[in-house]
């Protein structure tokens, strides 16, 4: 017997410690970032005062600034980031592709088109998130209709997703070119992603739906794990692969569309977060799905703070920051994975 025990076994205890440490760090970071976001701004407020104001105590002026201006924006960033992180995690596993993300599926394009169309129609600011939500879901429906042919095969899904995305992006592009200059600016602003100017009703609505979708994703995680085994093995284990893939895709699309409704199509969070999480916690589990949400929330909130306070330029989209921050990480992590040792088994 060649039971040569190779190197590389990660002991379970060590892995669990790493997951716990990562979770604790993430939660602490989220708390610190949230506090910073509530305290800083044109009028700086001490941390304790800000936290009291958040629950409605203290000086009415502070309460107004914190509750009405700062908190919705921060919570929107957290909710959207959580959705994007989880959506990216589910999609990359469903598509068995490290580059899968809402952009690849047309969700981003659909959300952009929905929002830009409403901007063009002169709809009020409050309707635009709904337009984005509808656009994202519509794009996913389009993808499903084109890609479904007695089941959902992965390759066909990826290619069709690219096609849907390209077509929708062209439509957005057309509108931006045809618009008068001021409208083109606000449309472009929207399509790069920003959490500026969110209000409580929007944030609460999206947050509630997001919690439901995240719960569904966690409940169905077992199906996702079985799907990872490939269609033949999953089928032999009694899973209806097409149905399961459809359910999970719907969840991922809802997560991504809700995020897009709040923050616009922010790139890179959905793409980079799963890689970061996998790097830290190893093989994907239900816990890593939850961690992806946490990491996404931290990343987006941090990026939004950078946009607001660290950069000298007004009105920069948060998407540009997530891309700049996320890209080097992503490249390093992906190149680590595509090392020859790993790929020879593929």
């Amino acid at each position, binding site marked *: 017997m060649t039971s040569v025990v190779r190197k590389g076994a990660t002991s379970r205890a060590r892995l669990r410690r790493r997951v716990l440490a990562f979770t604790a760090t993430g939660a602490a970071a989220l708390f610190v970032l949230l506090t910073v976001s509530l305290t800083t701004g044109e009028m700086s407020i001490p941390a304790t005062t800000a936290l009291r104001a958040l629950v409605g105590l203290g000086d009415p002026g502070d309460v107004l600034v914190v509750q009405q201006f700062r908190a919705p924006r921060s919570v929107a960033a957290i909710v959207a980031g959580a959705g994007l992180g989880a959506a990216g995690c589910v999609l990359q596993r469903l598509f068995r592709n*490290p*580059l899968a993300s809402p*952009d690849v599926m047309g969700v981003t394009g659909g959300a952009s088109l929905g929002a830009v169309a409403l901007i063009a129609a002169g709809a009020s600011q409050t309707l635009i998130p709904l337009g984005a939500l509808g656009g994202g879901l519509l794009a996913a429906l389009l993808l499903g209709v*084109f*890609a479904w*042919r007695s089941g959902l*095969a*992965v*390759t*066909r899904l*990826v*290619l*069709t997703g*690219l*096609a*849907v995305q*390209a*077509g929708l*992006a*062209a*439509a957005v*592009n*057309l509108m*931006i*070119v045809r618009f008068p*200059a*001021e409208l*083109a*600016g606000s449309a*472009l*602003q929207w*399509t*790069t992603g920003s959490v500026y100017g969110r209000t409580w009703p929007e944030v609460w609505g999206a947050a509630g739906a997001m919690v439901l979708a995240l719960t569904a994703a966690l409940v169905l995680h077992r199906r996702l794990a079985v799907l990872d085994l490939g269609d033949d093995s999953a089928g032999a284990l009694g899973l209806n692969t097409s149905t399961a893939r459809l359910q999970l895709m719907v969840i991922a699309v809802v997560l991504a569309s809700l995020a897009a409704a709040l923050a616009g199509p922010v*790139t*890179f969070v959905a*793409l980079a977060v799963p890689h970061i999480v996998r790097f830290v916690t190893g093989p994907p589990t239900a816990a890593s799905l939850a961690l992806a949400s946490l990491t996404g929330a931290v990343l987006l909130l941090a990026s939004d703070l950078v946009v607001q306070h660290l950069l000298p*330029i007004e*009105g*920069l*989209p948060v*998407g*540009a920051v*997530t*891309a*700049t921050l996320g*890209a080097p990480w*992503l*490249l390093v992590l*992906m*190149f680590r994975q*595509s090392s020859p040792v790993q*790929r020879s088994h593929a």
Partner: protein
Amino acid sequence: MTATQRGAPTTGVPFRAFRHITLFLVGLGALTLCTALSLALGARSVPLSTVTDALFGDAHGRDALVVTGLRLPRTVIGLAVGAALGVAGAVAQAITRNPLASPTTLGINAGAGFAVVVAIFALKLNDPVEYVWFAFAGAAGAALFAQALARRAGDIDPVRLALGGTVLQLVLLSWTSAVMLMNQRTLDEARFWLAGSLSGRPLDVLWPVLPTLMLGLVIALAVSPALNALALGDDSAQALGVPVTRIRLAGGIAVVLLAGSAVAVAGPVAFIGLAAPHLVRPLLGGDHRLLVPGCLIAGPLLLLSADVLGRLVIRPSELEVGIVTAFLGAPLLALLARKVAR
């Protein structure tokens, strides 16, 4: 004809050669027709007879002026750009061994876009003629950066190239948007260029990049026989005595020169580089000695037809050709998706 010795026995070889020649002639015919349409059609349609007269200097007046002054440069530019994109797409797919690769996925268009937007913002440019070298430099810079990312042990890893190119493209796109959002004038100038268009460009735009374009074409045609071996995988190609590393490097340079020239002239035009090889492959097969010349015809054919279509759909105004190709390319990609995977 040592080339087709492995073909089917008896009738195979002459029949296939005949078929290929016929297809090339049909392609050239279609291209000629498209060129003629491109000269004749637009906001103001001109009869073909007037077109010929105008070209030979026998006609004067407004129609003739439209043909020689506006449509001739536009058509010539369209032919050059289409050829460059088509060939660049075929070579890019071969060196990455990825049927979805195209100049866009290597970050070339995004690099050119970012460089032009920065130039417009910082140097206050406002004429496409002035953008040419910035676009070319941006394209070349992005493509070289993507290839440097993909380098490992002196060779370019196709998987890394695809991943790195895609990521680079996303970053550059977001920076482009950021720059445009900082400055209203930049947004106004750049959004038209970024859509990708053949209109409003004098032939002076083409001359500076003609040498690079020609050099790229020559390299692409020269390496095309070796590209066949790359399709077998690096190990098998190496075993056949093909210098894999050098071929991939030469192919990469050809793609940069061709796609860089194209984007410098016309702005980012998507899908031509992706679609041309997929159009040619079912007709001529996967042999790059036929595929690359085939794309040399199919590229301009696609681009000119898209441009003519863009002029006709919302007359008297017109659609930028980059938007038309994206709209046409998307269903094509969806069709492609339905064909693959049982």
